[in-house]
C-alpha cells in the first residue's frame, strides 16, 4: 500500500511522552504570549473547540455510533468510547443532577498532565482546558449545546480531575434532515 495505512485501531503507535511534551510546549508558549492565565484558558478552549469540530467526524466515521437518544447515552458514549479511543483512558460518569442534565467525568489519570506541576504564579491556569473545548466543539456539531468546565483539577491540589458537563439545549438551526 503506497498510501499511509491507519485504518487499524493502533497500527500507528506514537510516543505518548512526545504528546505530553507537545502539549506542554503549547501551554507554556501561550503563557509567555498572553501572560494572563484567564486569557490562556480562553485560548485553550478556543483551540480545543477547533479540534472538536473536526474530531467528531473522525469519531463518527470510526466508531459507527448512532445518534444518542438522551444525555445519559451521550455521557456513556463520551466516557466509554471517545475517551478510550483518543486518550486511552475510561473516565467514570457520576454526580448526575436530579434533572439529568449535568454530570461529572472523573478522570483517574490524564495523559496531558504526566510529569506536570503547576507553579504558584499560575494558580488559576486550567492546564487541560483544551479538553473542555474539544468536548464543546464536538457536541455542537451533533446539535447539542453544552457547557464544560473543570470542577476539580489534580494539578491544583484536588485528588482527582473532574470535568463537569452541563446540557444547555438542543441546537435547532441547521438540523440535518430526518432528525426532528
Amino acid at each position: 500500500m503506497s498510501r499511509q495505512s491507519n485504518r487499524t485501531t493502533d497500527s500507528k503507535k506514537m510516543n505518548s511522552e512526545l504528546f505530553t511534551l507537545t502539549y506542554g510546549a503549547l501551554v507554556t508558549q501561550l503563557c509567555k504570549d498572553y501572560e494572563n492565565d484567564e486569557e490562556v484558558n480562553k485560548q485553550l478552549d478556543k483551540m480545543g473547540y477547533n479540534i472538536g469540530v473536526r474530531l467528531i467526524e473522525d469519531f463518527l466515521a470510526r466508531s459507527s455510533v448512532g445518534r444518542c437518544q438522551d444525555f445519559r447515552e451521550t455521557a456513556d458514549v463520551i466516557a466509554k468510547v471517545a475517551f478510550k479511543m483518543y486518550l486511552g483512558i475510561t473516565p467514570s460518569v457520576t454526580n448526575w443532577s436530579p434533572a439529568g442534565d449535568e454530570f461529572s467525568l472523573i478522570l483517574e489519570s490524564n495523559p496531558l498532565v504526566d510529569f506536570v506541576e503547576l507553579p504558584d504564579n499560575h494558580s488559576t491556569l486550567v492546564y487541560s482546558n483544551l479538553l473542555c473545548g474539544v468536548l464543546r466543539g464536538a457536541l455542537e456539531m451533533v446539535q447539542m449545546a453544552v457547557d464544560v468546565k473543570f470542577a476539580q483539577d489534580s494539578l491544583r491540589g484536588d485528588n482527582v480531575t473532574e470535568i463537569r458537563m452541563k446540557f444547555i439545549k438542543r441546537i435547532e438551526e441547521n438540523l440535518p434532515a430526518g432528525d426532528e
Partner: protein
Amino acid sequence: MAIFSVYVVNKAGGLIYQFDNYVPRAEAEKTFSYPLDLVLKIHDEKVVVSFGQRDGIRVGHALLSINGVDVNGKFTADGKEIIEYLKDSTNYPVSIRFGRARLSSNEKLMLASMFHSLFAIGSQLSPEVGSSGIEMLETDMFKLHCFQTLTGIKFIVLADPRQSGIDALLRKIYEIYSDFALKNPFYSLEMPIRCELFDQNLKGALEIAEKAGNFGPGS
C-alpha cells in the same frame, strides 16, 4: 460495473466536492461539408442538434468541438458565433465533435442544492416519524446512494445499478473525508475541498470498490 461520480454536500446544501469517474461514451467526431445536414439550435447556452440523426449523432447532442478545438458555449474558442460560422461555406470542410453535453460546474452546484432539498422532503413525506432522508434514487441507467452523517454532511455516490458494496464505500469516503480533509489544518469546514490527498485516496477507494473488494482492516 462502475462508479460514475461522487458528490459531497455540506450542511447548508452547497456542493463542496465533486468527482466524475466516467468517460462519456456517446461522442462522435465527423467531417462535414457544406451545407450542414443537421439542424442546430441554441439551448441553455449550448449548441445542440435539434433535428437530423446520423452516424452516432443523436438529437439533443451538444456540439463539443470544432476542428479539434473545444467550443465555449455557443462561441468557438476564438469567440466567433458557431451558428454563423457554420453558415459560411468557406469554413468547410469542418470536423465537428458531437456528444452528450457534460454538466457544467454551475449546473452541478444547482443540482446538488436541489438534491439537498429533496432529501429533506423525503423525510417529511414519511408516514412514520423519524424517517431518514432519501437514501437511494434509482433510474434505469444508474443508482444514486446517499449517506448523511450525524453532522449533516451528505456523501452521494452515483453508480451502476448492479454495483454492490456502495454502503461500505460511502462509509469509506466518510473516513477519507475525516482524515484527509478535516485533519488538514488549512482546510476550512464547509468550504470546497481542494486537498490533493483527499482526491488521491478517494480515487483509490473507488478503484477498490469497483473491483468488488471489501474494505478490510488492512486497506
